[in-house]
């Protein structure tokens, strides 16, 4: 509960900058929500990251977006990616449970899990061609490749785990790296 008013405050202060982006995403809704912005960010990360062709079973194989956990952003993400093609491929969204295999995933959104669960997941995804994204503070240090955060002005920013990125099977664009706040894994 403590968090909710803070998010609201942050949201309120982020209305203006978010609005700019939201206009382009959904002309119908006048004020894009934080989740909309984040969903959009996640979709855009795919544009600055390249997957090796071995990650796909066939040239026409779908781009698999996996969502672990739930929440508003998960729903929003599903909405955003469901109607688009990523890497010129159709998108398939998989909702994963705690025991589900991560292997088919190309993009893995980790929602509201605890740090331990996240570290378990990152231990699996490390060195694989899976772009792991979270939106909880400290998730990057837990081994996720990208973690969405809000800066002190309420703008949506993101962190990239440099260590994980270096060993990842993905090729992350320097442009993306430049925008990110780079962090290391927590030991």
């Amino acid at each position, binding site marked *: 509960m403590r968090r909710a008013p803070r998010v609201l405050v942050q949201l309120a202060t982020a209305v203006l*900058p978010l609005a*700019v*982006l939201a*206009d*382009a995403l959904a002309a119908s809704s006048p004020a894009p929500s934080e989740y909309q912005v984040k969903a959009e*960010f996640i979709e*855009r990360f795919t*544009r*600055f990251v390249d997957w090796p062709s071995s990650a796909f079973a066939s040239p026409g194989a779908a781009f698999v977006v996996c969502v672990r956990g739930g929440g508003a952003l998960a729903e929003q993400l599903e909405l955003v990616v469901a109607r688009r093609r990523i890497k010129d491929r159709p998108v398939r969204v998989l909702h994963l449970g705690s025991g589900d295999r991560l292997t088919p995933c190309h993009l893995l959104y980790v929602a509201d899990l605890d740090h331990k669960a996240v570290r378990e997941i990152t231990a699996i995804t490390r060195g694989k061609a899976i772009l792991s994204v979270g939106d909880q503070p400290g998730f990057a240090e837990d081994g996720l490749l990208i973690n969405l955060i809000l800066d002190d002005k309420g*703008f*949506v*920013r*993101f962190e990239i785990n440099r260590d994980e990125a270096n060993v990842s099977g993905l090729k992350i*664009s320097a*442009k*993306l790296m*430049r*925008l990110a706040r780079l962090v290391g894994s927590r030991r």
Partner: protein
Amino acid sequence: MIRSSIRLKLVAIVMATTCASLCLMGLVLGAFELVSHRRAMTAELAAVGDIIGANSTAALSFNDQDVAKEILRALEPQRDVRLACLYDVRGRLFASFSRPSERMGCPSSPTSDGAAFEGGVFVQSEPVMLQSERVGTLRLVATQHTLWRHMRLFAVVLALTVIVSALGALLLSSRLQRLVSRPILELATTARRVTQQRDYALRAPQHSTDEVGVAVGAFNLMLDQVQGSDLALRQAEQKSREQAQFLGSILDNMGEAMVVVDPAAQILLWNAAATRILGPRPQGLPLADWARHFKLGRVARPGQVAHSEPPLARALRGEDVADYEITIEANEGRSECWVTGTARPLRDEQGKVVGAIAVFRDVTQQRKAELGLKASEAQLRQAQKMDAVGQLAGGIAHDFNNLLTVICGFSDFALKQIPAGNPARSDIEEVMNAGQRASTLTRQLLAFSRKQVLAPQRLDLNAAVHGSRQMLRRLIGEDIEFVAVYGANLSPVLADPGQIDQVILNLVVNARDAMPRGGRLTVETDNVELDEQSVRNHPGAHAGWHVRLKVSDTGVGMSEEVQSRIFEPFFSTKAVGRGTGLGLSTVYGIVQQTGGHIEVSSTPGKGTTFSIYLPAAAARSALVAPDLIDGLPAPGGTETILLVEDEAAVRSFARRILTGFGYEVLVASDGVEALEIQTRYGGQIHLLISDVVMPRMGGWELARTLLQRLPGLRVVFFSGYAAEMNIHPSFPVEELVLISKPFTAGALARAVREALDRCRAA
């Protein structure tokens, strides 16, 4: 200047071509450089824009303005980029970059895509694409400073290249133009020398076989032909000149004069004989003026009509003028000529008159000879008549003088015996007067026949000139200035005043006639001393003091030929009937008779001077004529005188006079008788008085014979006229006294006394 023109032209052509090419090349290069550089610049800017845009995609995608600005700052080294504006997908200004010096800011919304030069700056607006999705717009504004700097450098390099190339072209062309210009210039030089020097032996050097070489060859070939033609022309000219000279020499050596005129009366031919007759060729004299110019006279052959028109003029009208004879005054009126000849028209093939020729000759000599023959016949007749009259007058005078001596002498005696108051006295005085008038008549008769006895006197020539001055002035007229120059301290001369007057008169008349257009006539006297050298050419003249009488005129003068003949009797340069031809002969005779001589100096056109030299009176003993002392008291004497006279009346008259004066007188009627008387007479005979002309033995022979017998004998001759009185060469003049008849008693007595006293003085 002319020499180098073709060189200059060649160099100029090369230079003009080169410069034009270089300039065109420079322009094209410049334009190409500009265009390509602009293209490169736009490409570069596009690339820069692409990079910046690509770099900005993430910032735009994730809405990171700080990073966007940072990215735009990467444009800093791109010095041409002044302004960079990054807009988001909604057209809002997202980030910008501008130079501190740039005043222009970013527009609030992006302009349409594209690149263009706007007002000197390059504006590029391009979309920022993230994969196929547009995420924003990048607007770049760039100046062209680098472009212009480059273009300036390029221009400088290009200009330097052009200048160096042009200089190189100049150097090359000024060297290489000789290939073309040298043969042309040599050809031109040769052509000029050929035309200037007319030396057709010159040839232009042939260096090549190109077109110029062909032209040089053709020129030389042409010169060959010209040289040949020129040689032939010169030979023909030489030949025709020789022919012309030959013909001219024939024409000039023809005795006949030849004049040819064209229809306009321009003289085409005027040979030497024509110049001799008519004078120098008149220049541009219209034919109409010929008659006046040559003072054409009208003389016609018998049976022909006299024309006043020149024969050439008639011939030009188509008339054949055969055998004309005219008189003209040729040589500018100096001499009158008789000319005879023919004049014919010259016709061409159609018969049209194309000129006229006159062939004529000077027949003046013949005509003058014919006229002169007539004149000299008349003069001969006149001379013979004069001589006859002279002979007659002389004869009559001889007898008359004897008679008059007796008449006058005895009348004188009679008068002395008749006392005054006797009526017979006046009768005898009448007789005596008549006798004296008869004596005067006799003298005049003798003067007319030039047989008068000279009566020399001591004479002052200044007085003679002065005395005749008025008469001379009237004689010479007003056109001529008369100047008399009287010599100072002029010596007297022994001369007959009447004769001297005649000498002066004749010379003055002569001088007047030499000055038909007026002038100055000078009569001058002075004393001159002649040395042996100056009298050598004058026989009979002696060195010593002379009185000179000079008569000078400023008239036409005389040629040498005329000067040598002027003293010949009947020689005259004056028109027929205007002179006797005796004037200067008379002067000559008188001067010779007076013991002097004449010198003539004359220059044709300048004048003539006659100088008469008469011996000064002191230089020679004078004959003392009885007349000179007429009227003086008559002295008598007691000497013995032999009187010889064939005329009894004169003899008795003289005997009576001489006995009357106290002399012892022996008489004889002729020389033979006189010698007999001298032989018989034992006493001394002091004086012989004798007539000159006597029967049996004349006076001269008698005197010579007696002088041999009686040295120291004095002689007195009396005679009636001059021919008898010519002094015999064998007689020294000092021995003689002459007395002319009729004489008076006193004159005889004084002559006798004079002769005797001179003897005594000697």
